[in-house]
């Protein structure tokens, strides 16, 4: 079963529709057992880090997601969902994240308009199966005010907005998109298609 984690925030339906078009059928759930036993888990997210991690913990979903991540099966976070994968965030205070990727979530540079909202180009840093349909400088849709600051070892692609903004990250089976692939037209659809193929390969080889 492929699962989209429902923790009461964000517009989950458009993610589900986009995944379906990419050949990934999902169920939306907040059931711990279903998350732990899933084949693929997607962590969506809109809103503030504090609220999201609070809701995950309240329902015990943080533990379920970590247990799932330990299985080595693909875990994907989108936007705030990606930020939750890191160790810590400084949005409205200081809050621990899931700690699956080393690094912190910090506010964007003040000289730029915040949120970083609109279409920005992706620079490919590392070759990966997820990027097989992506070419240099293709545009995707970003909406965020915070970004992941880390060693960038996990960075597959980035964009520039005052800083180097990690846009697609991957540490083993843990994957994050800072932008919204489900809102990024054909480029986003192709990224999800590559993700779908990766998931199918994983399932058939295990």
């Amino acid at each position, binding site marked *: 079963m492929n699962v989209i984690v429902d923790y009461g925030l964000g*517009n989950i*339906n*458009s993610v589900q*529709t*986009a995944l379906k078009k990419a050949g990934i059928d999902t169920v939306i759930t907040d059931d711990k057992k279903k998350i732990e036993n899933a084949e693929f888990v997607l962590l969506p997210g*809109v*809103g*503030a880090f504090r609220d999201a991690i609070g809701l995950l913990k309240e329902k015990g979903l943080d533990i379920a997601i970590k247990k799932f991540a330990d299985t080595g099966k693909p875990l994907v976070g989108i936007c705030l969902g990606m930020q939750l994968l890191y160790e810590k965030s400084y949005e409205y205070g200081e809050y621990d994240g899931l700690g699956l990727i080393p690094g912190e979530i910090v506010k964007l540079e*003040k000289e730029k*308009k*915040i*949120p*970083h*909202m*609109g*279409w*920005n*180009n992706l620079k490919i840093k590392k070759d990966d199966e997820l990027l097989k349909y992506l070419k240099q400088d293709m*545009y995707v*849709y*970003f*909406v*965020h*005010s915070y970004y992941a600051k880390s060693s960038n070892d996990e960075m597959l692609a980035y964009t*520039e*907005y005052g800083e180097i903004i990690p846009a697609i990250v991957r540490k083993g089976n843990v994957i994050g998109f800072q932008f*919204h692939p*489900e*809102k*990024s*037209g054909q480029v*986003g*659809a192709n990224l999800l298609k590559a993700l779908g193929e990766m998931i199918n390969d994983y399932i058939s080889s295990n």
Partner: protein
Amino acid sequence: MLTKRIIPCLDVRNGRVVKGKKFDDIIDVEDPEILGKYYSDMGADELVFYDITASNEKRGISLEFVEKVAKKINIPFCVGGGVKTIDDFVEILRKGADKVSVNSAAVKNPDLIKEASEKFGNQCVVLSIDAKKVDDNKWHVFVNGGRTDTGLDVIEWANKGTALGAGEIVVNSIDEDGMKKGYDIELLKQITDIVNVPVIASGGAGEMKHFYDALKSADVDGVLAASVFHYKEISIKELKDYLKKKGIEVRI
């Protein structure tokens, strides 16, 4: 580099697009999702739908189009028109819109901006301002479709709105709307100078140069237009090619 956004705007009444029939090669198309898809395929960066359904009773039914649009297109879209309460935000966002724009209701109750941005994040909250020039270098916020002067200074209201949590400002120039003589560059300049969120120009586009002027001289983040796109006076593709040649970053 972050690109400038080209945003077609569609008016929807009782779930149908007004003016939709004017498209000559897709005759009688009034479905918001089909027109939305059409613009998206043409290269629009984002879409805005204004629900102009007059009666509250019919509004709930009219808003069903939001769900259809969300299923059909994969670019961001904003829905506005008659948004008065947090429940309106909830309903529209749940149906799949990415942003909700508020106008008159926010003037009456500025806390609506604060409440909505705290609940959904400021990226969801667009403050739409109807501006009319009242004196040299002075613009007031008007409500009720541009009929009532609130006495509020537009620059101050834009500043207050962003302080309350609006993540984007759409500035509709009542003076320029429908005139096709260009956006109100002076007004836009003053707003982009003081606010630290994206600003979208609306009202006055008649030719491609007008888009360029707003993006270049007033440094707005996006340009919104309705009739020039609906009546096919300007195609989005042609506009983007033109802007790119003139050195404006656009997504092609």
